[in-house]
């Protein structure tokens, strides 16, 4: 295999495709885009619930997948973080850069909050948990969306430690998946992770088991 081989394979595969779809009338970019725009999309796109029902649905769906959820006022976030970590017995936490700014709150005293500035996997493995903000949450599916932005950071820190405490602002909760995709469209090229509950598997007799390789424990603070 060399550059030439794969270049000619490229031409060959494209030639085969064009020959296979001869029945499609030749179309330019404009026509293809117009055809895409005209695709039927009569599924539910917009919210139908009021704010409280939407938040309740998110809580219900998160709990259904073994995440713990707690509500807290935005101004009491710091205190709530301290309480949850104390209850969990977690002290050494890794946090992404920009978290304090993202929360608009200082972090509680009595814990280690080490900022990830390119830690190695082995270094990350030495922490008891990770604390992050989030881009948005989807009520209908119990999903939290994380992106590589200040306050959420790289993907490795939310993966290697066994415990994830995540803060979701009530204002960032949407009801449906289509609403979420509209919000994410502008940042579609960023590394993005949809998290729905702690890691899980049903590979053994279809029995859902919480916690395999990703964080086995997920706590969510819903900031209202």
């Amino acid at each position, binding site marked *: 295999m060399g550059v030439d081989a794969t270049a000619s394979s490229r031409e060959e595969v494209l030639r085969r495709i064009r*020959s296979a779809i001869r029945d499609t009338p030749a179309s330019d970019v404009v026509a293809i885009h117009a055809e895409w725009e005209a695709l*039927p999309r009569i599924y539910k796109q917009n919210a139908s619930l009021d704010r409280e029902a939407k938040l309740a649905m998110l809580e219900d769906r998160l709990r259904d997948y073994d995440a713990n959820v707690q509500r807290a006022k935005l101004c009491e976030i710091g205190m709530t973080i301290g309480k949850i970590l104390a209850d969990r017995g977690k002290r050494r936490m890794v946090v992404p850069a920009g978290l304090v700014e993202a929360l608009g709150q200082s972090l509680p005293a009595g814990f280690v909050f080490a900022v990830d500035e390119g830690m190695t996997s082995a270094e990350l493995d030495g922490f008891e948990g990770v604390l992050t903000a989030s881009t948005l949450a989807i009520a209908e599916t119990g999903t939290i969306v994380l992106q590589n932005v200040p306050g959420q950071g790289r993907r490795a820190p939310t993966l290697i430690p066994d415990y994830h405490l995540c803060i979701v602002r009530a204002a960032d909760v949407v009801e449906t998946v289509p609403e979420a995709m509209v919000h994410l469209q502008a940042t579609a090229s960023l590394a993005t992770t949809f998290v729905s509950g702690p890691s899980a598997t049903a590979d053994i007799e279809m029995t859902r088991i919480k916690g395999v390789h990703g964080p086995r424990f997920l706590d969510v603070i819903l900031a209202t």
Partner: protein
Amino acid sequence: MSGAALDPTTAPKFQVAAKALMGDSQLRKNVRHATNVIQKKRARVVEEMPDWQELRESGKEIRRHTMRHLDFYLEQFERNCTAAGGVVHWAKDAEEARQIVVALVKASGGAGGSPTEVIKIKSMTTEEIQLNKALEAAGIHAYETDLAELIIQLGHDQPSHIVVPALHKNRAQIREIFQREMNLPDLGGTPQDLADAARKFLREKFLRVKTAVSGANFLIAETGGVCIVESEGNGRMCLTLPDTLISVAGIDKVIPRFQDLEVLLQLLPRSATGERMNPYNSLWAGVDKTSLGGDGPRTFHVVLMDNARTEILADEESRQTLHCIRCGACQNACPVYQQTGGHAYGSVYAGPIGAILTPQLMEMHHAQSLPYASSLCGACYEVCPVKINIPEVLIHLRNKVVKQQSSGLNILANPEVMALKAVAMVFRNETVFHAAQKLGRLGELPLSRKDGQGDAWIEWLPGMLGGWTQVRDLHVMPKQTFRQWFEARGKDAAGRRADDQTGNGTAVRATRRPGDTVEKGTGNGR
């Protein structure tokens, strides 16, 4: 089923393999249990979606649109992925894909020389091309990191389901494999114990191995991004922590735009595992150069593989096979799969989707028995999230198989086709047909036996015809054919014409339809 790879070029006929597997009551129990559980979970989360049918329709149309413009979207994906720092490779077939991946893995070690290990995310595409064997031959060991794939790998077994490849094994069997292969004699037997053992076994590999190989669920043309859908976090480990990631994807995996995920990410998890959303979806484009320490691998390759997909694309009637998003719902719903499990299909793609995909990937040269591995009940079509009309494609492929087997020298190798050719000859000529009927009445005499009601039945037929009488009795041929009866009736009717004039004729005719006579006289109505 042991170590031999599921290879459609060497696999026995479905009917033969199925018969053997039907004798394994433990396997059948495991498969039945698992498919029942997934089906119930799926039904529950599909029922709560009032717009499910509208989503299916959109899913179908998005996939159809993509295939109509596949060249355009693949080139767009290539452009955007490259701009984001990824490297795109093209492979005409399995052999070329294997060569590319092996060469990329070898090069990923840089000055340190070829790595001897890679970590892998579950990927049916890499199973399809038997990549692990090729890596092994190049001195590279691939660690499967999905729990089910790990069970398969350590058990020297083969996948039997697209989504839950080890569904044919129960916890006791899995425990035995782990005890032996991980050297854990005291391992407990609960699913939690087994998952914990897998976590410990693989964690060190996630943190150490620097090259990963994956498949892909979706390639997004608009952004050049890739989407991988998973549950355990092993996928995230493989696509985030290593220095090099190599993703192998069929050319059918491309989707036009980011927004299309709003349909597919609703359809896929609910159909596949009966979850509203699976625990993790990862989306990324190329490589990240801005974050401190980097976010994800420094080198990212995508291998776009044809491997006969363009053959499927060229057949307008079965093109919809390529719409598949690999959810496995058709397997769970299939009454045939539920009885036989996946191995009988002799392919990594089992069940209804496998029955249409596998023979086409083999360009109809192998796996010709698979289009017949179905009762055409339509359960697969009903649950398919992108509305692939599998029964329609099955019939289309049966037609292709018949045409292929009845052309040229193939006839000589196929007694069934020879017999049907002979029958066709008999049916084409009236004199020969009548002679054959007479011969048939004579020939069946020694085989027939009268029942209590005076009806004669054949309970046993010789040779290939015996397939029919194995499960049902055959009525003897009627003494009189319809044509003979009709001609005789014509003579009768002439005599009765006088009656008609009196006004009684209509009533008489109404009670004497041909069907009555046939039923009474010959019992042909069965």
